[in-house]
């Protein structure tokens, strides 16, 4: 029973200390705001996702062409559009 009591007490103390740790570590922080990304950061992220998507689409097309899934005609028709799109996203700073 005493061991159980000891373990229970240690558990409770440990839990309280862990939960209070952020406040114990910084009792009076200069800034306690949960920073949210600004519009600029959100735009940068969206552009980065768009850039990766465009580059990945270009790579997929190249690979599908090499493996015969995309015919030469389809490749010629699509590659220009995708390259242009990729260039736009890179220019946009993505």
């Amino acid at each position: 029973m005493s061991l159980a009591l000891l373990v229970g007490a240690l558990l409770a103390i440990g839990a309280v200390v862990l939960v209070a740790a952020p406040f114990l570590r910084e009792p009076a922080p200069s800034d306690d705001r949960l920073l949210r990304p600004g519009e600029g950061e959100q735009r940068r992220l969206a552009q980065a996702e768009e850039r990766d998507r465009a580059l990945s689409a270009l790579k997929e097309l190249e690979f599908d062409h090499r493996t015969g899934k995309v015919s030469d005609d389809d490749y010629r028709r699509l590659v220009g559009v995708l390259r242009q799109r990729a260039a736009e996203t890179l220019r946009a700073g993505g």
Partner: protein
Amino acid sequence: MPDLGRAALVTSFLLLVYALVAGSFAAWSGRRRLAASAQNALIAAFGATAVASVVLLAALARHDFSFQYVAQHTSRELPLGYTLTAFWGGQEGSLLLWLLVLCGYSVAAVLTARRAGREVLAWVVPTLGLVGTFFALLLVFVASPFATQAAPADGAGLNPSLQNPYMAVHPPMLYLGYVGLTVPFAFAMGALLARRTDERWIVATRRWTLAAWAFLGVGQLLGAHWAYVEIGWGGYYAWDPVENAALMPWLAATAFLHSVMIQEKRGMLKVWNVLLVVLAFCLSLFGTFLTRSGIIQSIHSFTQSSIGPWFLGFICLITAASLALVFLRLPLLRSKTRLESLVSREATFLYNNLLLVALALTILWGVVYPLLSEAVTGEAATVSKPYYNFFLHSFGLPLLLLMGIGPLVAWRRASLRALGRTFLWPASAAVAAGIALLGAGAGSSRVGVIAYTFSIFALASIVLEFARGTSARRALGGVGWGGAFSSLVARNRRRYGGYVVHASVVLLAIGVAGSSAYQTVREGRLHPADSMTVAGNRLVFRGFETRTESNHRAIRANIDVYRGGDYLGRYRPGKNQYFAEDQVSNEVSIRHDLLTGGDLFLIADQVNTDGSIDLKALQKPLVNLIWLAGLVFLGGSLIALWPDAREERRLAERYEGAAVQI
């Protein structure tokens, strides 16, 4: 010790309530330290739940029958291994396992999924806290594993069906799958609550979703094998509601794993993906409800209990709140791009999604309908095998075909000429196989021939995809065939791991079709020296033998098996009579033929007092491919899960600055 268990559970409950309430307030008001404190509460809840679990395990190991749970699910003669697996053999213990796994997943996901972004993570914590609070509440107030009593001399023992080595791994695997689906759900809700509907929540939970899905898949196959070798009716899947309960979230998660690729590659289907995550999670809760509420009579429903209404209420709350949130965030979830062609890779993914969801929902209706009919009319209607088989054939066979078509079709759009070229070999192989099967007499089952033909088509397309990819990679120069192959897989582990998983599904389909459409069954009453024949095997009954083990008496029939003039060995189907549990179990005997993949399956249906036996013998062609499929599935899942350093670098660069801990 029960006091320590109870105290640990109460501590866990309070910590989870704190994570929910303080975490919500912190995320809503934007308080950094409070959000970090709520996150720490999740970590502490894991510790408290682990302590409670250790207390229960210790009580089981010590046969402490003052714990009602220990007395109800074990006995002194139960071997230690099964005594410990009784942890999840009953309702209270399995709820504790749910909570332990949930807290473990929560801690691991929150600490590692930093790419989700701090504002998303701040909402993920209270979402995980909400689910944890529900389970902790059940354990503290409704179904405590630490209820005590005056200790009886011995316990009631464990259900004999659960006294099988598979019980050590099958339930934990399923729970890792069920509970793991909480992670993508929490991140999806976190993203919606934080109004951040970009890809970060998907990137952050990619591996967690895949892992949960793989656990659920492996868990089901282990369960099927357990049913096959232990339950003793000669099958591995009976469309039991509780078996269906694990299949439904797996199907929804499978649909999500496919459709999420369309969002990643094309920025489409954002609403659909969130809905699939909600569906998969709600179905996993529903699965736990079915298993643990005792609402359905099933081999798996070991207990009747009072937790049903709680579960139903929680499922309704989660479903309503999630759908309301998705509705509120619809403007943020609109896609900018559209499907360019109905003949494209993304279109095949869409068809696959519709079929998977349709299959999951028809199975759900089959499970729910008897309950509804009983509630309305007072009589439970029966939804049996033909209903499920009809929809399995209607949706499953096209899915098998799509599995072969998908890899052959290009993204965005595909011309007929390109399709003709890529389809030539797989289609020719499939047609040739179909004709050969008809010639070999397989036409007795139309569904079987179609399944085999589609399987060959899918397998050929997978092989072709690997071959063409390797060839294309080698053409870039600098490497041989081996190097090109490994570079191909290493550069796109998810795709090629996925193809290996597809191959496992093909093996599964071949195994299921072979063992169900083409199985042979013979039954007969045999006296000693009598014989019967099944699929060319002559079975001679040589009489019974009995032996007494620590917790049961075993009776076995000696059956000698001959094929042609060859003696293939002695097999011993029979029954076990368990003393403490006062139950009898069927113990089957199986002859595996590794060359053909088939099994000779023997069941002692009835042991008669006049020394005769009612023997049931089944010849199940290709059934072992189902278990082989499990290994291939695991291999494919591991390939897909394996970290990709190149991808990690790309994502690190993309999310630079956003990956800040709370």
